[in-house]
């Protein structure tokens, strides 16, 4: 019965008016409190996008730049998932810098990488994050740096200075090697020419003469 018919029915039969009012109230209640069924059970996708949404700026996507991604290129079947904590000797040996490889008291691969799903990282609270949001994982220990990064004091921005909307933040792993985050020493570019007749100071630098 349409709303118009219901109204007409109520008009025609005053005894039904009470019932019609109740029906309208029920309808309004259902409309106001209606939620789709899938709102009750969030999918992994909605968990992943959660950290991004709390930031006031966007982050440079990291996944397109990864060399060995997706991991499923090599890890194809169940037999390729050996999650036993051990010292790695054949593969990923060079990545053992940031954690003590095989030391039980320290971090190892699955402190950050998800145990079952190699395409994702995992935080200590079980939150699943993509490689684009590595800052969630790094920030668990490096909290003060994450705080500075969110304020745009630490790290780099790509784009324009005009507003946060026109710039993208470089994620931690854009500059730092995630498996050895300390900056590597590097050869500096050549020093400036000495003015004619000036002798180069010693590499120890100037000493105060008084």
């Amino acid at each position, binding site marked *: 019965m349409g709303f118009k018919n219901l109204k007409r029915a109520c008009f025609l039969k005053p005894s039904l008016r009470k019932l019609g009012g109740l029906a309208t109230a029920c309808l309004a209640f259902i409309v106001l409190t209606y939620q789709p069924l899938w709102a009750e059970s969030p999918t992994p996708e909605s968990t992943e996008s959660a950290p991004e949404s709390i930031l006031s700026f966007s982050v440079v996507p990291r996944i397109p730049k990864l060399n060995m991604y997706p991991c499923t290129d090599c890890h194809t079947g169940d037999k390729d998932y050996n999650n036993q904590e051990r010292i790695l000797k054949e593969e990923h040996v060079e990545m053992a810098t940031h954690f003590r490889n095989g030391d039980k008291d320290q971090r190892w691969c699955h402190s950050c990488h998800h145990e079952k799903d190699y395409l994702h990282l995992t935080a200590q609270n079980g939150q699943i994050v993509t490689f684009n949001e590595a800052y969630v994982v790094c920030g668990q220990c490096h909290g003060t740096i994450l705080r*500075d990064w969110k*304020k*745009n*004091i*630490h*790290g*780099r*921005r790509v784009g*324009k*200075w*005009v*507003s*946060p909307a*026109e710039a993208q933040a*470089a994620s931690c792993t854009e*500059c730092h090697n995630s498996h050895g985050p300390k*900056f590597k*020493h*590097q*050869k*500096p*570019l*050549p*020093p*400036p*020419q*000495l003015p004619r007749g000036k002798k*180069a*100071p010693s*590499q120890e*630098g*100037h*000493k*105060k003469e008084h």
Partner: protein
Amino acid sequence: MVDEKKESRSSYLLERTLNKALPRRTFLKGLAVGTAVATLTPAKTAEAFSFSDFFKKHYKELSPQEKTAMLTRIEAETKKRYGIDVKVEDPPPMDGVEFVYCLNLSKCIGCRKCVYACVKENNQSRDPQIQYIKVLEMPKGSLDVHEGNMYYDHEDVPQKDKFYMPVQCHQCKHPPCVKVCPVEATWKEPDGIVVIDYDWCIGCRYCEAACPYEARRFNFTDPKIPTEEINPNQGYLSNRIRPRGVMEKCTFCLHRTRKGLYPACLEVCPTGSRKFGNILDPNSEVRAVIQHKRIFVLKEELNTMPRFLYFFD
């Protein structure tokens, strides 16, 4: 007899000239042209100066039409001289914007990437070498610039017990260089950048002596830049190719920053030590740095009020 005739003739001519009402304007024009010819011809520098260039007004008095004509002229001159097409613009300062630069001394590793990015962006002379940024290697525990060494050449940086302090133009709020300029060829723009009009500069180098940060450079010769390395996006007050005998210095890349881009030195920095933005915007990164970090002002006691600040983590 003949002499007498001559004398009377010349006196007659003189008298006639003096009595003739020669308009003052015409006289001055003739004088100006005469002076110009006298100045230009013997030195054979006629190609370096055009007539309109020589008699142009001060930058601040130019009308928009005159400015456009001037920029077109510079483009044509660059084409004639270096054989490449360049675009010379003069972006105006943005409203409600004052630039501030912050540099993290705890992060800088002294790799000198900023120095060479700046040279390339700003069309600085490669030989003789002109560089706006000096990276000082300093012993830890001191902020005395006299102990710094800008000629360090190690196999790798950062060195142990050393920190690195890049110094460039501080864009002072009270700029000593502007105060000493005898011809007003350098001035402070509304967005805080101290600029030089290379066409107005007479090359007296007073500003170089006045600057406490050693930020100003002098073109002793015509700048030598490989043609393929010339940056074609040029600004009148910033990175257009300078003539010989004028001063130049860092302008926070105003041809970029006035369009919203970051300066070249910031974009190339691998450590993210450099922070740039609008101090008047409460959400800007420089505002965050000033609110949350310890700031060091180089030579604060001189009351130059620099817009270039150092900070520590």
